[in-house]
């Protein structure tokens, strides 16, 4: 992955806006931002972002590649779509944020221990195994995401809720062994593989 990063750096030679335009989903919209700041003002999580969307767009145009791609900001997006609804220039801001996150992930530049990124990986790993989310396993892996000690503490804290769910049949311990899946797991995996191939071909194509 870091090779890919290096490849991209050399290819675009500091023209980060072009790089974003070519590689990020909806990235060709970034140049159209007019810096009004409505997106930053509309974002419910705005105050918690290191760089709100308006700033991200300016940083892209100012060529701040590392700062943007290594930022945790776009991972903070909750997809509430407030910014898209309000952007006077009609920029698909939510999509651009996810596009940037994806691109950053592809380049291997996601900040260490970024919780959203981590959870996204856990979710994907869980889902991609059997085509269905194994909630028990997903919950536990979330608890133990940051180590055993924290995991035990978290589990004990959530114990009553867990027992309640068990009693009402919302949760079954049997999920620990195997668990349920979609009808045709093999076919599902084949689909994922094909999608992966298509995606890589796409990146390869735009990257060539």
């Amino acid at each position, binding site marked *: 992955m870091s090779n890919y990063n290096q490849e991209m750096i050399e290819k675009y030679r500091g023209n980060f806006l072009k790089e974003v335009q070519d590689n990020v989903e909806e990235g060709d919209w970034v*140049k*159209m931002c*007019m*810096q009004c700041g409505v997106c930053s003002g509309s974002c419910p999580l705005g105050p918690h972002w290191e760089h709100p969307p*308006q*700033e991200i767009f*300016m940083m892209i*145009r*100012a060529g701040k590649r590392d700062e943007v791609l290594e930022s945790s900001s776009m991972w903070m997006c909750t997809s509430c779509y407030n910014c898209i609804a309000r952007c006077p220039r009609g920029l698909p801001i939510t999509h651009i944020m996810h596009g940037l996150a994806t691109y950053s992930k592809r380049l291997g530049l996601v900040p260490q221990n970024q919780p959203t990124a981590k959870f996204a990986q856990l979710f994907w790993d869980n889902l991609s195994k059997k085509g269905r989310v194994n909630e028990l396993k997903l919950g536990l892996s979330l608890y133990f995401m940051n180590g055993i000690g924290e995991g035990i503490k978290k589990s004990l804290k959530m114990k009553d809720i867990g027992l309640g769910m068990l009693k009402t049949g919302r949760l079954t311990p049997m999920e620990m062994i195997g668990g349920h899946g979609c009808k045709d797991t093999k076919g599902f995996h084949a689909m994922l593989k094909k999608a992966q191939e298509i995606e890589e071909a796409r990146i390869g194509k735009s990257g060539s």
Partner: protein
Amino acid sequence: MSDLKIGAYICKGCGLGERLDCDQLATVAQRDGKAQVVQQHDFLCSAEGVKLIQNDIDNEGVNRVVIGACSRRAKTEAFDFQGVNVSRCNLREGVIWIRPDEDDMRETTQEMAEDYMRMGCAEAKHSLIPASAQEKGTDNTVLVVGGGITGMTAALEAAKTGYPVHLVEKTGELGGYAGKMWKDVPMHAPYTDPVDTCVADMAAEIEANNLITVHLNSTISKTSGAPGRFAVDISTESGSTSTINIGAIIQASGATPYDASQLPELGYGKSKDVVDRVELEQLAIAANGGPIKRPSDGKEVKKATFIQCAGQRSEKEGHLNYCSGDCCLTSIKQAMYFKDQNPDIETEILFDDLRTPGAPGEDFYRSGQDKMVTFRKGMVSEVVAGSNGPVVKFKDKILDEDVEEEADLVVLATGMVANSGVDIDEVPQNEPGEWEVSVDSILNLNYRQGKDLPHLKYGFNDSHFICFPYETRRTGIYTCGPVRRPMDTQQAIDDATGATLKAIQEIENAKIGRAAHPRSGDLSYPIFRKEGCTQCKRCTVECPFGAIDEDEKRFPVFNESRCRRCGTCMGACPVRVISFENYSVDTVGQQLKNVEIPEEWDEKPRILVLACENDAYPALDMAAQQGNHYTQWARVIPVRCLGSVNLIWVTDALNSGYDGIILMGCQKGENYQCHFVKGSEMAAMRMSKVDDTLQSLSLEKERVETYEIAITDIDRAPKLINDMAETIEKIGLSPFKF
């Protein structure tokens, strides 16, 4: 006048018949107003009612028509009778609508109506029927000063309408600033790419037009006369002068680019690679569509940085305080010169506020963004020399950080400075009889008040920004283009078209001796009784339109077709020798004297309201339409402009026993609303001295108030009248009731 015959007509429609005793009004008109013919009608503005009046005019010899009906602002077409004077008594808006319909109010409401009838008759009795101005225009020719886009448009528009044109251009070729541009911002959709300027096409069209005479390398060395009969001396560089008779003048003298050498902090003059926007156009012309090369070493520019608001929108000494309006679009256009030639060239526009007005604005901006021009909100502090080119130091206001960036070429988006000639408030006025050409002057007017059009702000010529943009303070001379306010090519073209229309209107008005805007169609003009004049010069100095010159003996010389009929001279004259046929010291003075002033023990105060007919009077009318009320003690007299209010009216009113006087005019000062520019200001100045008069009469100074009223003040205006009634209640009635 011996043949004066007043006909009074009282309408009983719109509820007037129910609310008022019209028979009594008729008696008042006959007995007090001395009306020889008095008629009542149920519906006076109907065809039948109008016919009734017209019949009396035709067969009974009525030549002063007094109409007791609605406001003078209503039914103007129905009551438009030719060859007679019409006085309107405002019984509807001014009496029955402004007063509540209650039984115990009937008496005072009737008194109001009767007073208005007396006032109408008094005005009629003391007015003359205006003959048109004696000086009539004879010349059809339009003079256009300036051969830029604006001037060329004006010349072509006038010629297309059939008026001959003389176009005077100081330099050796037509085109002006636009002629020095490589390309222009597009004027038609799609607003995506720079387009060729229209200069060459227009110049060819002018060349081919028989009605247009072009004077290159020429200036105006003298302008005298008045609309419809200006005499203009056009001097060529070689020294020859020809005099041409002109009907109206369009001044399109444009603007000069701001002198960038005043911006050393932005590197201008220090580095050859810092250029202003005019020089960039030259570089683009030199490149002729190929790569643009920088001046210092001829290297192809790979990175260009544009600095917006260079020396503009800044309070610093020597900078322009204002936004020049077109620089943002110009910089986007110039960035496209680079991008269209080679998209890999980096172009960065550093702005504080990006302003892209006009039809192409937003689309052209988007097109710039689409072409990957970088827009960055940055405040430039300094441009210094670097190893490979100028280094721009700026603060990025979005990222809140200081940045230093090297560029191959830095372009300063400098503003425009109006070519508005000499500031006549600074330069001494011409002495009568003495006259000398000023090279800085555009028009070299031989007017008493100075050689050029007055300035308003930032050196731009004064024009009423919202209501009548092309009208200047010199009748028959119209400004358009950047001499009026900063603007781009498209706006200048629109502007020139408008100004041309005004010039043509004025030529036609002058031919029949009637007034231009805002009293368009008015046939009256100032009449001056020379025997009484004390040569005090107040009228010549105060005329907002510089209409009045002085002869060798310092008597005023009224140039009738330069006059806008505001009456400021009449208000100024301490010996009251200036009047209009249908508007004079007497027509208003007799109105206020004919109001019945009750004895002191009646406890019925009288408040005189002199209201500007342009804004304050309509505001009061509209207040009535909205169902607002004001006190039954008020008597409102419309005046042409507060500037026409002669102090004698105030003194007379106080002496006659009025308890309070309110003057309602328009906003004055830099953001003036006055239709006659200076009228309300002059009135305020005169009224500031009214305290002396009050003191000499031992009256309280609260009895006279002057207010600025906007046409929208429909709640405030009645309230101010009511406030005066309250004040009078507090301080008591005037002791001057005889």
